[in-house]
């Protein structure tokens, strides 16, 4: 990637993030009900509400409010939750940990299952295990996350009693318990991811296996293992890298249903709570952070693509 196209991509990322900030701000304003009554209760007098609005800046015009908030964000100050009095940047730092752990855990599980299975299935194309894996991935693709979650809770928490159904333990308290509490939600996400990764990688490996250099490698007398994992896997991984990155960016804070179902105090549940309580400052900050992660991961994937495939780096 040339410096110029890199700068152009970075510029686009900035434009997108500023637009997201404006859109979130507007979205916060169209939510029904007033923050003042949510905080002070229905019995608040008009004077109390006016005083509250003056203190939080809610009596200012919208453009002025946005300017104040966005200037703060650029200085690393995401404001203060009017509901809890907690600084939003502190809360985001706390909330980001479980979300990141969950998504990394899920991605690792998904890749650990999907990569060997896809290579094996492509190598044994048309055989019974290939057909079984294809059918399995197809059913998984059609199963919504919350259905997978409910089934897993039913089997492992209700029937077997092996794992906790909900809750989260921070790693600084008890890492083993963190692992146990994150296992079911991570498997929920991983099953859906693994199905997609399996299908994409299997198709990629099938295509690579038809290349002449694979024939040459075989003719040199390399074992199937060497051919598959050294010569076939690497060129087939490119589309997968994009997908892993996209899903990572999408799921950090985007796995709202899974976080909510398993009661994980992550970014998704934080934003969901902010929607329900009309806590604008929290909603704006969380959405902006989630969007920033998504945009930056996308940018990183583009760069990584050039590193992995020299043909792209030297094109143009």
């Amino acid at each position: 990637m040339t410096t110029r196209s890199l700068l152009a991509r970075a510029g686009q990322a900035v434009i997108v993030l500023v637009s997201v900030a404006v859109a979130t701000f507007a979205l916060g304003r169209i939510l029904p009900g007033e923050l003042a009554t949510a905080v002070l209760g229905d019995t608040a007098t008009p004077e109390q509400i006016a005083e509250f609005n003056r203190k939080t800046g809610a009596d200012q015009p919208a453009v002025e409010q946005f300017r104040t908030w966005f200037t703060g964000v650029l200085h690393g100050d995401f404001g203060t939750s009017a509901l809890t009095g907690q600084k939003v940047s502190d809360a985001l730092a706390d909330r980001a940990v479980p979300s990141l752990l969950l998504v990394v855990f899920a991605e690792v599980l998904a890749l650990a299952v999907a990569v060997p299975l896809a290579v094996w299935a492509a190598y044994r194309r048309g055989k019974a295990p290939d057909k079984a894996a294809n059918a399995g991935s197809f059913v998984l693709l059609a199963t919504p996350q919350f259905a997978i979650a409910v089934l897993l809770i039913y089997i492992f928490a209700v029937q077997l009693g092996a794992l906790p159904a909900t809750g989260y333990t921070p790693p600084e308290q008890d890492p083993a318990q963190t692992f146990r509490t994150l296992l079911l939600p991570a498997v929920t996400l991983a099953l859906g991811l693994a199905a997609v990764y399996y299908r994409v990688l299997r198709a990629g490996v099938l295509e690579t296996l038809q290349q002449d250099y694979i024939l040459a490698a075989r003719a040199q007398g390399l074992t199937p293992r060497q051919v598959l994992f050294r010569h076939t896997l690497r060129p087939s991984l490119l589309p997968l890298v994009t997908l892993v990155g996209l899903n990572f960016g999408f799921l950090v804070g985007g796995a709202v249903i899974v976080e909510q179902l398993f009661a994980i105090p992550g970014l998704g549940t934080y934003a969901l709570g902010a929607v329900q309580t009309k806590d604008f400052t929290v909603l704006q900050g969380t959405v902006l952070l989630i969007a920033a992660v998504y945009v930056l991961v996308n940018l990183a994937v583009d760069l990584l693509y050039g590193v992995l495939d020299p043909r792209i780096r030297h094109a143009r």
Partner: protein
Amino acid sequence: MPADTGLAGTPPPDLAPSSASASAAALSESPRNGTRPLPPNRNRLGTGAWLAVGFLAVLCAAALLAPVLPLEDPTRSDTDALAAGISGDHWLGTDALGRDTLARIVHGARVSLVVGAGATVIGAVVGTVLGMAAGMGRGLLPGVIMRLTDVLLAFPAMIFALAVIGAVGPSTTSVTLVIGLLFVPGFVRIVRAPVLSLSQREFVLSCRAMGMSAPRLMLREILPNILTGIVTYGVTMFGVGVMVEGGLGFLGVSVPPPDPTWGGMIAEGRQVLAEHPMVTLTPTLVLVLVVLCANVVGDRLSARLDMRGAML
């Protein structure tokens, strides 16, 4: 990739007998003289896909005819049969409040299918118009359209849906509109790529040179060439729409109770999951089957039409 390579009957390149597949066969256990026979019925949808179409058709018909079918009232509680199993009175049992599961599934289908189809149509129409404009437009327009889709993609989808539906109130219309809006970027991308390459083709250039207006050119020359791709992608997105509506219903922000939605039924059943798993499992199974059927049809269509990369 030009969209018109998939003429029915032309085998896709990766299945055609060629020297390339000989090298693949060299790796496999039993090389069949270096070529792989073409699978039969390349031009047909196949039995599985027809079964899927049949299931969806029956469900659509049931949903349409729900008011005149001899079904129980989906909101009426049968206090003699709480969370009952399959019986002559209740073909698919009842839920924890004694409401007939079959009736609730059929009435829930009215919401799920309308939202899935409606959202797909909205996404397809808006996405196609914007995608063609982004592929053929000049000046600032393509950049603006692509940045707008980037913003929509970067915005956490579920939070967006929850906030907008929270603002305008949950109803079939609002749920459909929000999911449809979320579908637009996907369609823009699936349309823009082939339009970019098509707009450089001779037949388009000659139409331009003869002075054909841009809207007419798009409608008469470009659209027919990309329609198969849009339809194939749309069939899959219909399934996604049904899934997203299920998710919103599960969180309690789809059509409000007591009207049944599949997601709502699954969420309500969780309270009695340990004692009566069927209350949850039956609507889950129906939901999965519907999405599965849509995926089977979409997959067969795309294999038949050789629409590769029909993915976000």
